[in-house]
């Protein structure tokens, strides 16, 4: 458990924020995509990817039954295979935190809860704080908040900053992931700026998307966020985690994200303490690939449980 910081938080100095050239970012991303990850490095990467998943269900139709089944899946990804990790966390709405916590007891799997009027974030500060308190009081280890994109686009950076700082305080010892919803921010320069606001306001993780808006996580956006984390680390020596979420559904794409992570932030971040994938269907594709690496042939999707 992390201790609350007592230092005074201030808005970052945007005059030091580097500009972003989208063409250049896309070129760099293309280079990560051409890395050829084979054999033992593939198996290693896939298992690492698996251990970083926040297995997620965030639907209006979520029920206790659905959450229970998802929790079981989180702890028993594919029991016929030896040596598999569990996922990092299960991510649910606040009302299911208590249940998920109970289901996952003793597994080491964390419970993450979305909060702050997820996914739109269109509510009052008071409601957002009480939403956060409810999640944390129900036992959430991690809170995934959304920023107020409307305020951000209006240029009210201090509003966004203060809100994140307030939610961080409400989190207590729970780790805070700040969702930027980059699909609504429109430019990479905005992504960079929002990342800085979140980090300086005390985010433990920055996260791309809710999964409710398209585009969700993209590699260019993720690279810009990783570079913001790197700059902050250079400056302060403090690590901040990264969570791309939404749209990462295949093992191949997940490996590309990990290559980007490895070559941008390095080994310190190659752990689920500092990197997560927010995903629902990714786990099964990784399992299928791992089984293929073991047996040499692909199996039918029906051999992998769909929860």
């Amino acid at each position, binding site marked *: 458990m992390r201790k609350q910081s007592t230092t005074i938080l201030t808005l970052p100095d945007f005059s030091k924020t580097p500009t972003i050239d989208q063409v250049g970012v896309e070129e760099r991303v293309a280079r990560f995509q051409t890395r050829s990850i*084979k*054999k033992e*490095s593939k198996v290693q990467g896939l298992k690492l990817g698996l251990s970083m998943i926040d297995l997620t269900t965030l639907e209006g139709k979520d029920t206790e039954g659905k959450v229970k089944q998802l929790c079981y899946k989180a702890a028993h990804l594919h029991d016929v295979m030896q040596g598999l990790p569990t996922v990092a966390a299960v991510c649910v709405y606040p009302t299911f935190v208590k249940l998920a916590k109970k289901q996952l007891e003793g597994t080491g799997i964390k419970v993450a809860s979305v909060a702050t009027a997820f996914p739109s974030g269109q509510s009052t500060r008071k409601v957002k704080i009480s939403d956060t308190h409810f999640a944390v009081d129900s036992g959430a280890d991690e809170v995934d908040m959304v920023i107020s994109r409307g305020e951000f686009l209006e240029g009210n950076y201090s509003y966004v900053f203060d809100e994140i700082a307030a939610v961080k305080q409400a989190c207590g010892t729970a780790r805070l992931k700040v969702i930027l919803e980059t699909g609504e921010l429109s430019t990479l320069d905005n992504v960079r700026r929002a990342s800085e606001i979140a980090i300086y306001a005390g985010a433990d993780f920055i996260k791309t998307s809710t999964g409710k808006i398209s585009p969700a996580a993209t590699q260019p956006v993720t690279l810009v966020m990783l570079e913001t984390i790197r700059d902050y680390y250079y400056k302060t020596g403090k690590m901040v985690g990264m969570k791309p979420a939404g749209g990462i559904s295949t093992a191949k794409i997940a490996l590309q994200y990990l290559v980007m992570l490895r070559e941008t932030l390095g080994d310190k971040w190659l752990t689920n303490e500092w990197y997560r994938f927010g995903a629902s269907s990714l786990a099964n594709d990784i399992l299928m690939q791992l089984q293929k690496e073991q047996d040499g042939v692909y199996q039918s999707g029906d051999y992998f449980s769909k929860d």
Partner: protein
Amino acid sequence: MATTAEKKKQNSLGLGDSKWAYAASPESTSHINLKPQYELFIDGKFVKPSSGKYFDTINPATEEKLSSIAEADEKDVDKAVKAARKAYNNVWSKMPAKERGKYIYRIARLLQERAREFSVIETLDGGKPIRESRDIDIPLAANHFFYYAGWSDKLEYAFPNRKPQSLGVAGQIIPWNFPLLMAAWKIAPALATGNTVVLKPAETTSLTALKLAELIADSGLPEGVVNIVTGAGRTGAAIVNHPDIDKIAFTGSTDVGKLIQKAIAGTGKKATLELGGKAANIIFEDAPIDQAVEGIVNGIFFNQGHVCCAGSRLFVQEGVADIVIRKLKDRLETLIVGDPLDKNTDIGAINSKQQLATINKYIEIGKKEGADFYQSKCSIPSKGYFCRPTLFLNASQSHRVVQEEIFGPVLTIQTFRTVEEVIEKANNIPYGLSAGVWTDKGSKIFNMTNKLRAGVIWANTYNKFDPTSPFGGYKESGFGREGGLHGLMPYLKF
């Protein structure tokens, strides 16, 4: 209390060695058929050299011999020029332009079909990473043929009211850094404009040119339109001095370029020379820093720095110098140096033992001159010719490593304060081939491009090539343009 040094160490990313290492991923060579011996390609046939002499071509990554290459002397060159003249007089100059275009299109398509084979051979013979030969050299070579094929029957539209006419026989001498691509740069516009060709590849990288000869023979191009003679300086001199050649196109060192210029003085031979360079890559404070770091890496480490337009002199504005250098050093650690055939290799083998010696000579000079030497910590293979990515920090304008072309993965870094200062320093060099400018401000880019004396200036990118874009230098970097509409002109008279 942690000392500053300790604190700095804590903040280090340590990108060099990872617990998640990439497994070897070599491109297969099983589909490659190399003959033990290659002959000269003259008049549509493969013929033995008159001297009977052959030289070895080796794989610079393993130092193993790949094949023997015929050495052409004056007699062979004379035969090749005669064949080219005959083909020009009897066939090529008389052929309707649209038919000429069809042959060039055919070469382009065949090259695309055999792209994989050509990529692997280019990498085996020259040492460049397979990623580059696969993604850049070979596709770009095919694109040059496609592009100039299109101009064949449209020359009168390219130069309205000027009656463009072909010259005759072109003698073309190309370097070892982009063997097939340079052959395409030379052959494609020459054929499109109705000339015939005698081409000499560099002696360390003859194989893809000879494979191109096989491909040209397969394409049914009339005999003698393209002749390829292999050999070293003596063969090149025989081409330059041959009285029946109408035009010399040369890409290579400035020293040889000067010799050529002297040799053809007063002969009426036209010439284009694309020579050395020592380009300034300029990073302003308002640059997109992370992308600029990529541009620095791509500028100097692309093709092991064997690039005449390489961004070998880095200028960083003082306000961002620390962060740029820190990021650059971290980025260096992620560059994979090694087996050029491995798909993950970023920097392959130095082209030849001789070139490695030249690079090492300059590294020693740089150290003696007192610039701060820095190399990435990567491991390099014990066999073959390899060089770690190298920086000389705090270099100054009076250092030889700043003034002279090294043609290897060695970058000098200087800082600057004002726009005027950097323009003066960037231009203060006998070369003028290329430059790079990194800033978020459009007006600054236009100001710089007006004042930098360089043939090619990239803004917020580096080492980008396209058949439609003219390429060539100022000052001792040569004259004449290759590529684009401009690339047609040196092969035409009006």
